[in-house]
């Protein structure tokens, strides 16, 4: 490899730092970046700059808020309308007959019973789908994922919090010990849509103020189990 190629390689690695920090490089690229970081203190400083940018970009996006319930309502109205059109009136029966059938006492009783069964089944399916989001085997993890209803974590709304992305190589046991040692607990996450999800972590049981929170976050950030940590509300 000549000198020009070496320089190009360094540029390529520099360009990959944002994806390295986000945990979205493949293993081969991540290994190359890590090797370069180990050998180049200036590159490591650049990675700190990237992490600063990433933390603020995340906070900016989090501040954009959430959509109102109107969206889901409109969406499923449209979906139900399409389903009705696709099904059409019952074959050979007509809409009038279908409506009459609906209001016979036997049909009414059957419909009520079916609704109970359906609701029960749906609850089961939702629970199953939600469990698929859990990390590791059921019962093996103290963490709760994004699928856990907010009500489940309301009891620990008080305290000081950080958004944390754990390093791809971090395993469940290490993270559990790391959090336990600091009295920290994951209260929400991972946020959907990414391979290296963000977790909302309660880092202190009480509100500790900005400076102390930043110190706690720096402590998280200094661990090799954490790829990024930023204060949050």
């Amino acid at each position, binding site marked *: 490899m000549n000198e020009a190629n070496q320089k190009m390689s360094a540029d390529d690695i520099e360009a990959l730092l944002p*994806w390295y920090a986000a945990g979205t490089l493949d293993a081969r690229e991540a290994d190359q970046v890590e090797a370069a970081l180990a050998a180049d203190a200036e590159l490591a400083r650049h990675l700190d700059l990237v992490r600063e*940018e990433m933390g603020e970009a995340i906070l*900016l996006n989090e501040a954009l808020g959430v959509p109102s319930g109107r969206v889901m309502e409109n*969406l499923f109205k449209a979906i139900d309308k399409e389903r009705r059109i696709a099904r059409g009136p019952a074959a050979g029966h007509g809409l009038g007959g279908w409506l009459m059938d609906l209001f016979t006492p036997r049909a009414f009783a059957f419909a009520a019973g079916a609704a109970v069964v359906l609701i029960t089944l749906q609850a089961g399916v939702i629970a199953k789908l939600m469990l698929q989001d*859990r990390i590791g085997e059921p019962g093996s993890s103290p963490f709760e994922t994004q699928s856990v209803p907010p009500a489940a974590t309301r009891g620990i709304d008080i305290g000081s919090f950080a958004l944390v992305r754990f390093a791809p190589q971090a395993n469940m046991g290490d993270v559990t010990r790391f959090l336990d040692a600091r009295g920290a607990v994951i209260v929400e996450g991972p946020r*959907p849509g990414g*391979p290296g999800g963000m977790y909302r972590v309660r880092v202190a049981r009480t509100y500790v103020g900005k400076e102390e929170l930043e110190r706690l976050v720096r402590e998280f950030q200094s661990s090799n189990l954490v790829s990024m940590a930023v204060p949050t509300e």
Partner: protein
Amino acid sequence: MSANLSTSDEVLIGRIAQGDRLAMQVLFARHQVRVYRFVLRLVGNQAVAEDLISEVFLDVWRQADRFEGRSAVSTWLLAIARFKALSLMRRKPDEELDEETAGAIEDRSDDPEVSVQKKDKSVALRKCLQALSPEHREVIDLVYYHEKSVQEVAQIVGIPEATVKTRMFYARKRLSELLKTAGIDRGWP
């Protein structure tokens, strides 16, 4: 540490293709916030963004059977959302769009110098991020917030992977320039 959400998303899409309304609810609950924030950054209006994400997920309902699994579901969603948002913006008069965009997306009322006066580097950094061009801000958000790989950004934005890397580099370079103007020299690039 990560939960393998992509597999679950693909399973949901398979169920949605068979008309499973419940799977649609789960997929919607899982992705609506991120898609909304992505669209809101593009169109700059909450009501418009909400209407658009309804359309995005309605498209998913209609086209789930065409999903080939060549990208993550979240990438597919963002690509649909981006296409719809840009189509809408092209239909709107330029003046109206510019006005809304300036007012709701790129809040430039407080320039970087003001942030420095506050002596808060984080605030200055956020202000400078907001001052980036929509093109630069988009790639920054996709990489840092939506956690998209080079390939995924290329799929969403519709540009070559090499251009994704170059655009991200210049977005960060511009960010450093804005910070320098504001009195914060990061020593890079």
